């Protein structure tokens, strides 16, 4: 029987009650006394020198309270990159300043160069239109190949060339990899584009700045995935506000997918403005601003090569990637194409030799940063595409080629040639499960039936791995991270026995409030309903690093279990005192502390109450209260893995692809709430299918974003998506965290794009229209053009 509560139960998402009944409390829902509104002036050209900004007309407009330009922030710090990357030649990456408001130069369409604060949104916007700016247009750098080839046009005038860094991973492997290629019996070469994506969180970014002159305290309500990191960045790096004088609150947040990890200039602006005018200042992005100024995702151009034996045994992998970072370095933009991408290029395979080269390129486009999967989808896509292509070239079954090369269970822990150590997994098991669940055996019959209807059917797969549970601070520190990636939790048991758990992770759709309560409930034997999960407010929670990289349960969840362990240990002390027994004889089970071998026991509630009514405590040895905090820094990444297949029908007349089936066999380690895990996979696969078939971010040659609205940017809709088959029965528990969890938030977006594209290529090949490759998104027009080339 399925469990109905605690770890492993599909407890209903408690947060959905408020989300689905319109009672969520998002930043835009918050109205403060005396609130004013900010509107931003954004560049309509990709690159220009700001010769002057005349604010006088705007300042005289009705309702206008203040006007800010870049000059107002010339003396404050820049928004820093979180990782410092070293180039192959030993040079440190270039890090041009990212100011609060563009100063002297605008660097992409949508770059904010001024802001108006007014009594109403309309007044603020009217005044923005009254600003008189004199731009001297500079050449725009848009295409990465051009940016690298031609130093004469530069995305930032302060740069000498457009390359942020030129990174080799691992440089010491390079000669051996090249030698393997030189002597390999077969080499497959594929050039591909990993298309740029606009994150499109349902809730646009929004911030409210508040300043209390009497205490000199600031408060920032903002759409953040990690309020403490935002506080650190905005306070210490940008504004010079003492951290203890800034409270950052990320209330309900309607999706982030990475785009809300980062600190953005608008957050600093509303704080500075609140101080200047002495009233709260609110800004809510409209959808156009989201398109133009949220950090985008992906945007790699890669040449990948696979050297193998004629029987498909992999010998070496070599890649050269241009990774777009846009006009400014967003906080994780240098980590994403390097340590979240290069380190994954071994995939789940035994490939002995791997060398990755990534050049990060500045362009006059919006910044690019981590987006669901962050680097790992890019790695998986190039690897899984080149493997398929190699199998085709060698006339081998792509399923069997993968099986032949998968790391086997006897090889764990397995150290890859790109510096990760996979602790555990069973990649054959997920592949076998996929073969079963996708009814691969019945595919030929289904293909014949499709052919009767005039459709071309294809089947594609990917076997993927990712590194999440980000991340061991020591390891990432050695790799250039400027932050630690631990997390923290405080468990506060109240006198009446109910519990508030303050966590550093932030839930913006994931369902932490439900799952974390399930875990604590199981550990303490008290009902889920008596446990609340508190997150998103730096004044309430311990210093945590927030949610991204599928880290919440693996890292923050572990901190939470450690805090619960401390509660149990303290409870035992209290019980020993109350039961007049020795602490070593106290056992805790099912919510009861008992003396081993006796029927003497105290309930959890009795212990909690006693902790706050310590009338006869031996105070030298027993502190009152029952509240514990734990910090946890993981020993390793976690390594979810799995096998995905996609079955498509292609219309030969129009090139339209329809997804007929999508099957996921995942290994997420132990699963705390199967329903929520399924939901995470569904959402991730929807985004992966969106990338593979629909989503296309297109800048024209002048750096104008052509796809700046839903009229041209195609988001996946329900009827674009199939019913998914999702399985997580082949789980191998993570070996280095107590819950044995690996993380499931990004898997769907990582494993799915290559499965979709491989399926389409398979369909065309079977129909006698061999096409080597089509770049995503596989729109009808592109598929038709490839078929008829």
């Amino acid at each position: 029987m399925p469990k109905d509560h605690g770890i492993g139960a599909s407890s209903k998402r408690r947060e959905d009650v408020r989300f689905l009944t319109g009672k969520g409390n998002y930043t835009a829902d918050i109205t403060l006394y005396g609130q004013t509104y900010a509107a931003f002036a954004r560049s309509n050209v990709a690159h220009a020198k700001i010769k002057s900004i005349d604010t006088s007309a705007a300042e005289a407009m009705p309702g206008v309270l203040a006007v800010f330009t870049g000059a107002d922030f010339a003396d404050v710090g820049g928004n820093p990159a979180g990782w410092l990357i070293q180039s192959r030649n030993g040079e440190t990456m270039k890090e041009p300043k990212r100011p609060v408001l563009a100063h002297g130069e605008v660097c992409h369409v949508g770059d904010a160069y001024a802001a108006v604060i007014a009594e109403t949104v309309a007044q603020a916007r009217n005044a923005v239109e009254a600003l008189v700016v004199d731009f001297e247009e500079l050449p725009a750098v848009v295409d990465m190949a051009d940016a690298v080839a031609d130093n004469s046009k530069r995305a930032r005038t302060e740069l000498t060339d457009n390359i942020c860094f030129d990174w080799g991973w691992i440089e010491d492997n390079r000669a051996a990899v090249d030698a393997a290629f030189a002597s390999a019996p077969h080499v497959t070469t594929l050039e591909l584009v990993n298309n740029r994506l606009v994150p499109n969180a349902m809730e646009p970014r929004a911030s409210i700045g508040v300043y209390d002159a009497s205490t000199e305290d600031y408060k920032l309500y903002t759409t953040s995935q990690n309020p403490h990191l935002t506080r650190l960045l905005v306070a210490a790096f940008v504004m010079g506000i003492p951290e203890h004088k800034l409270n950052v609150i990320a209330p309900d947040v309607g999706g982030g997918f990475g785009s809300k990890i980062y600190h953005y200039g608008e957050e600093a602006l509303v704080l500075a403005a609140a101080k200047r005018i002495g009233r709260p200042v609110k800004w809510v992005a409209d959808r156009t601003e989201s398109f133009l100024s949220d950090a985008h995702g992906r945007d790699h151009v890669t040449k990948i090569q696979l050297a193998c034996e004629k029987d498909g045994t992999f010998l070496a992998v070599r890649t050269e990637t241009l990774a777009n970072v846009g006009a400014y370095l967003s906080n994780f933009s240098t980590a994403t194409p390097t340590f979240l991408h290069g380190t994954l290029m071994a995939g789940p395979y035994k490939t002995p030799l791997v060398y990755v080269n990534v050049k990060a390129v500045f362009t006059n486009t919006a910044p690019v940063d981590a987006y669901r999967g962050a680097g790992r989808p890019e790695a998986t896509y190039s690897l899984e595409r080149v493997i398929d292509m190699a199998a085709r070239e060698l006339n081998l079954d792509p399923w069997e080629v993968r099986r032949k090369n998968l790391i086997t269970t006897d090889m764990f822990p397995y150290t890859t040639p790109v510096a990760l150590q996979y602790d555990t997994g069973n990649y054959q098991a997920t592949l076998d499960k996929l073969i079963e669940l996708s009814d691969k055996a019945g595919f030929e019959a289904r293909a014949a039936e499709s052919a009767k209807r005039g459709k071309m059917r294809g089947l594609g797969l990917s076997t993927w791995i990712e590194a999440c549970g980000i991340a061991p601070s020591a390891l990432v520190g050695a790799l250039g991270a400027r932050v630690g990636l631990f997390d923290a939790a405080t468990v506060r048991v109240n006198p009446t026995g109910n519990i508030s758990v303050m966590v550093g992770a932030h839930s913006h759709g994931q369902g932490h409030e439900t799952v974390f309560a399930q875990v604590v409930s199981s550990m303490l034997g008290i009902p889920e309903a008596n446990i609340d999960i508190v997150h998103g407010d730096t004044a309430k929670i311990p210093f945590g690093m927030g949610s991204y990289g599928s880290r919440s349960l693996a890292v923050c969840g572990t901190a939470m279990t450690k805090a619960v362990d401390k509660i149990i240990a303290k409870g035992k002390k209290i019980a020993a005192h109350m039961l007049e027994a020795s602490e070593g004889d106290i056992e805790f089970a099912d919510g009861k502390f008992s003396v081993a071998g006796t029927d003497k026991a105290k309930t959890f509630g009795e212990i909690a109450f006693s902790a706050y009514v310590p009338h006869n405590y031996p105070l030298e040895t027993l502190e009152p209260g029952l509240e514990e905090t734990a910090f946890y820094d993981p020993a390793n990444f976690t390594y979810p893995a799995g096998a995905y297949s996609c079955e498509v029908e292609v219309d030969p007349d129009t090139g339209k692809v329809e997804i007929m089936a999508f099957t996921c066999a995942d290994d997420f380690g132990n699963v705390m709430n199967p329903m929520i895990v399924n939901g995470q996979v569904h959402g991730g696969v929807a985004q992966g299918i969106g990338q593979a078939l629909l989503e296309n971010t297109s800048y024209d040659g002048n750096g104008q974003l052509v796809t700046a609205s839903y009229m041209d940017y195609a988001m996946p809709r329900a009827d674009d998506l199939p019913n998914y088959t999702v399985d997580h029965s082949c789980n191998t528990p993570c070996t280095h965290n107590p819950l044995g969890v690996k993380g499931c938030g990004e898997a769907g977006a990582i494993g799915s794009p290559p499965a979709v594209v491989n399926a389409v290529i398979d369909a065309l090949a079977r129909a006698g229209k061999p096409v080597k490759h089509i770049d995503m998104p596989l729109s009808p027009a592109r598929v038709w053009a490839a078929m008829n080339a």
Partner: protein
Amino acid sequence: MYAFEIERPSTIGDAASALGHDGAQALGGGQTLIPTLKQRLAAPEKLISLTAIPEMQGVCIGDAGEVCIGGATTHATVARETAKSYPALSGLASHIGDPAVRNRGTIGGSLANNDPSACYPAAALGSGATIVTNTRKIAADDYFQGMFTTALEPGEIITEVRFPVPQKANYQKFVQPASRFALVGVFVAKYADGVRVAVTGASEDGVFRWDAAEAALSRDFSAAAIEGLTASATNLISDLHGTPAYRAHLIKVLTKRAVMAAA
């Protein structure tokens, strides 16, 4: 959005005189106009809503058997009320946008706007419809004058649209993946005196008739009849979602499909 005033007259006469003033603009369902205002791309001083005028609402059958649709009738109403009298038109209306768009957007607004990717222009031109305004009757062949351009004079109101009912008809829409407007849409209608084929979504000049296909289908109303034809790619739209060659190809594919679905 800039501030504006709004009026809701209840007769065509009142609406026409309100629209006689400078800075006044007609508001149908607002599904095109309101997003434009929200983006501050237009700044009318006064909007004259046409949705409270009973004469401009609903569907009826005219003396000559034609389907007559009030200019302010929503897509949802057209979809529902022409299901029996003109199924191809009903099918077209039921696939415009989403339920919210269909419950607000109007046939008059769509034809007045004449978006090159909109659906109704294909039906009106393909049916040889008559666009009735507060001052005159305009044949569809004279009405559509290029992308976003029509025969309407400033302030002129589409009060009704009259569709002669064909023997057979069908609309095939191949959606642009993002907007789900027509990347190409083809409306085929077979009348006693010949076949009309109207193409939307494809041309820089907006909706147009594919003469060669009309001639071939008038002789032989079958998909085979147009097998030998090629739609010209000249002057077709080139954008992110399709090249002129792709659109030309789709015109033929969709025309064949429409004939098969109609036959």
